[in-house]
């Protein structure tokens, strides 16, 4: 325990710090290995040592070597992730607002969301695939796969909104209303700006969870793959460092999304601290 005023760290601190460091190494070590291996020379294999350093395997991705439709699947994944992001943000914020009061069926909707989150992905995909088959609609990435992904991102969005609202101070809302603001004015000018960092977090989840999703998408995808499905196909039949190159590229995209989201949250927080409005602190 870190006691206020005590200068010396207890022995447990060092044990726990060592444990934490090992965990972080465990988390990032293997990933960094494939980033390095993706720059393998043209004659290099799937494991160390490096046979020279090159961009050979990255250029192989863009060539038509048995790596499949990389450009097409990549575009589809990005477009789909942006659609999922938009729907997830709008719908989860609305749901988060609604869940502040108990309403008829709120417990039912809550449990539906939790089960939607933890249901085995492939099983959900099977159900969505069957639904489209019975309706006689051809499954595709922008219809059935989109729906299957929403069952994964929406519950996450709701849980984040719960966390955000648990620290939201309703006094600001009441003050706005007392000053004569209408419902939409209060929402747009007071509530949403205060919630903005949380909303960005929901957007980050919406984008990255869709961009990397594959168990739910596998069955209802239709004839054109998203990127994770291409990668999945590659894991079983490509045995060259091209697989690692693809992994490095796709992880880089995720990192860009994470960096954009976290930077904008940090900027908002800093601006607030500077202006002295601590509306979001709630304490």
């Amino acid at each position, binding site marked *: 325990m870190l006691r206020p005023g005590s200068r010396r760290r207890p022995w447990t601190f060092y044990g726990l710090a060592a444990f934490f460091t090992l965990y972080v190494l465990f988390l990032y070590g293997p990933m960094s290995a494939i980033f390095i291996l993706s720059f393998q020379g043209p004659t290099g294999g799937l494991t160390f040592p490096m046979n020279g350093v090159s961009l050979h395997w990255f250029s192989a991705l863009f060539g038509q070597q048995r790596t499949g439709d990389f450009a097409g699947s990549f575009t589809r994944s990005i477009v789909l992730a942006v659609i999922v992001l938009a729907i997830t943000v709008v719908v989860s914020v609305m749901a988060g607002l609604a*869940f502040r009061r108990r309403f008829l069926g709120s417990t039912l909707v809550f449990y539906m969301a939790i089960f939607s989150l933890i249901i085995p992905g492939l099983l959900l995909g*099977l159900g*969505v695939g069957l639904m489209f088959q019975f309706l006689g609609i051809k499954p595709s990435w922008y219809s059935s796969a989109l729906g299957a992904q929403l069952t994964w991102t929406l519950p996450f969005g709701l849980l984040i909104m719960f966390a955000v609202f648990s620290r939201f101070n309703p006094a600001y809302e009441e003050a706005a209303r007392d000053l004569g603001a209408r419902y939409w004015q209060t929402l747009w000018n007071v509530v949403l700006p205060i919630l903005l960092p949380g909303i960005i977090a929901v957007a980050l989840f919406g984008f990255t969870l869709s961009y990397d999703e594959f168990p739910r998408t596998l069955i209802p995808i239709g004839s054109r793959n998203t990127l994770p499905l291409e990668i999945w196909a590659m894991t*079983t039949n490509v045995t060259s460092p091209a697989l690692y190159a693809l992994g490095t590229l796709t992880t880089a995209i995720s990192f860009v*999304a994470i960096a954009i989201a976290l930077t904008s949250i940090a900027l908002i927080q800093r601006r607030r601290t500077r202006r002295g409005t601590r509306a979001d602190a709630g304490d």
Partner: protein
Amino acid sequence: MAPFASLLLVFFGVPLALVVVVSFFDLDQFDIIPTFVLTNYVELFGSSLTYTLYANTIKYAVIVWAITLVIGFTVSYFLVFHVRPFLLQLALFLLCTVPFWTSNVIRMISWIPFLGRNGIFNQSLIALGIVDQPLEFLLFSDFAVVIAYVHLFSLFMIVPIFNSMARIDPAVIEAAVDAGAGRFRVIREIVVPLSKTGIAMGSIFVVALVMGDFFVVKIMSGGQSASVVLAMSNETAVLQYPPAAASAVVLLLVVTAMVVGILRIVDVRRELAG
């Protein structure tokens, strides 16, 4: 509210109901026959393979749950109670969560160059003179499957436990310490009980994720092991939908029973939504 509930109803409720309906359908060479038969279930429960698959999947779930619980609790405890200032705590927490936003498949295959016969781990062991021959059991084994599960899913344990612990009022702990409680007594009587929502949420995620997995077990066991969903995915690959649906229904009941069991111990909804 309405859009949230209706989207979930259309893409979760209806598909789930369809899976249940199709599990009673019959199947001939090429087509699904809409009727009401119990053959899919009779065959499922009559096959000894089913029980082997469940035993294997539950074994993974229990091992991974235990390991991720220890990691989740220890990492959260360190971050919440030992790391100051707040910004450093936040930065280290984010460090643990960043991989969550990247591809699971890529994170999984990143173990292959690490654990392989000529992988980094074996080469280091040989270089250090600990072993003469590369260890064979590291990759394409139960060991590799468990390592990959822990790697992929431990975040799901850390985040909710961290969240619960961060909300513990430091005054409670100070009071206990002032009253003479040692650190282990504080952990046992204050930290653990007050983190139980997080522990329950994390356990639900980890158990459900392992029970629903097919890709980790397929790749990391090198085809030597299987899980319930892997068997199901093999059936759907050859369009055997009714037997796959029956298997899905049974799995869903098993996972639901496990989750309800956890929820009976801890009322997550009350503590989450306040």
